[in-house]
């Protein structure tokens, strides 16, 4: 029944929700966004620095009129897409050291046809990808993690009619260091920084050995990121402050971001996770978007995340990460699961998912058999002298003969 409702919603989204077309500039500027999001994800995974993590996602927009492209010539029918995966795995070196390897990949853009692996490469297509990889080392005694690696940004196709010339591939490098709940992250291109992030994860998380409840779980998670931005060859760097705050039992969170020195309020999101493991979630968000001419507008939206399907409408995350898409439903099929000491959790969770321990199916035959065996076990007899006699069943005789067994006979 549920899947039918999902399809109904999707068809409705395709039928009447015609979004504002996405601007061509958003596609050409998408590289920094992709690289930064991957590093943010890696930062979340490095909170533990061991265990494993997998995240696979595929954005699905069924109609070619849903996310059209706005080029200088007009409005083109087609599909905006975002395919991504992130995998992290670690090995135990000794009792306190863990070595990890991570790969994050994302391919995003716009094409006149949709696809799984092989794009159409239309005249107005813009397809680029970012691959981030690296190694991590975690020392559990010090509670510290160090990770570093490379980031490759590749331009697969940019239609010459609609987009300016871009470098086809760029090599960045990045590093991440964490000591307890303080972390520092940087990404660089040649000798200049691209982003520098300083995070204070003050919230106590049971998953990583913190408090289960109490005031420590209500401490804020703060981060400040310096973004390098060039405008007409002038450096116009800005700082984005982010404050994530547990509001109620690690199931309700507020997430606010603010830009300095110019820009001001960027977005605010209220999130509700029915379980602190964050495998399911609901969110409502408000984003302040810049429009042409300097005027500003608040964009209200929300999203529902049912473990493998996320449905969003005007949500701040999708506006930022899906080329400023607005006014339409965006569905994303994804799996996003972390494993840590045999426990499972979703991205950024504070607690592990409750594990299934009871077997709910009732088998009468099996039950009777188990009961009979239990009765037999306790079936001891007392002989005439008052000694306990245990009747053994199914005794196995083993012939112990050293010479006979040697030589493999």
């Amino acid at each position: 029944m549920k899947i039918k409702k999902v399809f109904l919603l999707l068809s409705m989204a395709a039928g009447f929700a015609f979004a504002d077309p996405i601007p061509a500039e958003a596609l050409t500027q998408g590289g920094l966004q992709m690289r930064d999001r991957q590093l943010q994800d890696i930062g979340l995974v490095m909170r533990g620095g061991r265990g494993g993590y997998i995240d696979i996602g595929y954005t699905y927009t069924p109609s070619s009129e849903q996310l059209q492209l706005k080029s200088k010539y007009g409005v083109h029918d087609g599909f905006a897409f975002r395919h991504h995966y992130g995998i992290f795995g670690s090995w135990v070196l000794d009792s306190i050291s863990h070595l990890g390897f991570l790969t994050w990949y994302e391919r995003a853009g716009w094409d006149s046809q949709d696809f799984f692996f092989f794009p159409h490469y239309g005249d107005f297509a813009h397809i680029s990808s970012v691959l981030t990889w690296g190694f991590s080392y975690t020392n559990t005694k010090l509670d510290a993690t160090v990770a570093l690696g490379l980031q490759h940004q590749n331009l697969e196709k940019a239609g010459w009619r609609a987009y300016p010339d871009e470098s086809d591939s760029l090599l960045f490098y990045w590093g991440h260091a964490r000591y307890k709940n303080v972390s520092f992250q940087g990404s660089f291109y040649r000798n200049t920084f691209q982003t520098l992030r300083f995070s204070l994860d003050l919230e106590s998380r049971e998953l990583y050995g913190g408090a289960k409840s109490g005031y420590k779980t209500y401490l804020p998670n703060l981060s400040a990121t310096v973004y390098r931005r060039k405008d007409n060859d002038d450096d116009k760097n800005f700082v984005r402050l982010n404050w994530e705050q547990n509001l109620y039992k690690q199931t309700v969170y507020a997430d606010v971001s603010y830009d300095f020195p110019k820009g001001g309020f960027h977005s605010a999101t209220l999130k509700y996770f029915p379980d602190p493991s964050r495998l399911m979630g609901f969110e409502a968000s408000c984003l302040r978007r810049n429009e042409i001419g300097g005027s500003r507008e608040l964009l209200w939206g929300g999203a529902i995340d049912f473990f493998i399907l996320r449905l969003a409408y005007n949500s701040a995350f999708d506006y930022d990460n899906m080329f400023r898409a607005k006014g339409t439903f965006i569905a994303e099929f994804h799996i996003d699961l972390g494993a840590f000491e045999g426990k499972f959790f979703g991205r950024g969770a504070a607690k592990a998912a409750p594990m299934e321990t009871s077997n709910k199916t009732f088998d009468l035959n099996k039950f009777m058999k188990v009961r009979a065996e239990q009765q037999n076990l306790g079936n001891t007899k007392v002989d005439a002298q008052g000694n306990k006699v245990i009747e053994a069943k199914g005794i196995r005789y083993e012939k112990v003969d050293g010479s006979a067994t040697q030589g493999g006979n």
Partner: protein
Amino acid sequence: MKYLRLFLCLVVLSLTACMSHVFIDTTTRLQVENKTDVTILGLDIISEDGTSVQPWIRDAIEPGEKSRVVEEDWVGTFKVRVRFDKWNGETKKLSYYCATFTYTTPPIRVYNTLAKQGEPTVFEKDVNGCGLEENVHMVYSETDLDFEGGSQYLIVSKDEDGNVAFKLK
């Protein structure tokens, strides 16, 4: 049974997600028929600010004739410009000259807009530019057309008021 249903759903999903080109046209095969009494010199897609031009039909189409079919990736809503060698009727004269104030200021460009209701839809543009290339004499008409993809047929004709009429089939 449960897994079969899930599998079928996935098959349907994967088909719609990568086979959309089977039922969606991502190119337009355009043919233009000239029902006016003047020669059409070509058809272009022009950018909204009028500074970029992408030629589509390059044939000169004599009155009463059809162009060749040309396939291009234009699916959506675009501004189309049809150029004529002359126009036997009322035109809107647009005369521009190029002015440069200082060496650092780029030449001012005057942008074209679609004609308002009741005005002639054929423009006659004379540009006396800064360089020889900028000297242009052009008779043309502009309109926004919605190309749905596939085979499309554009009829350019002259209406009772002496204006250009476009009909896209």
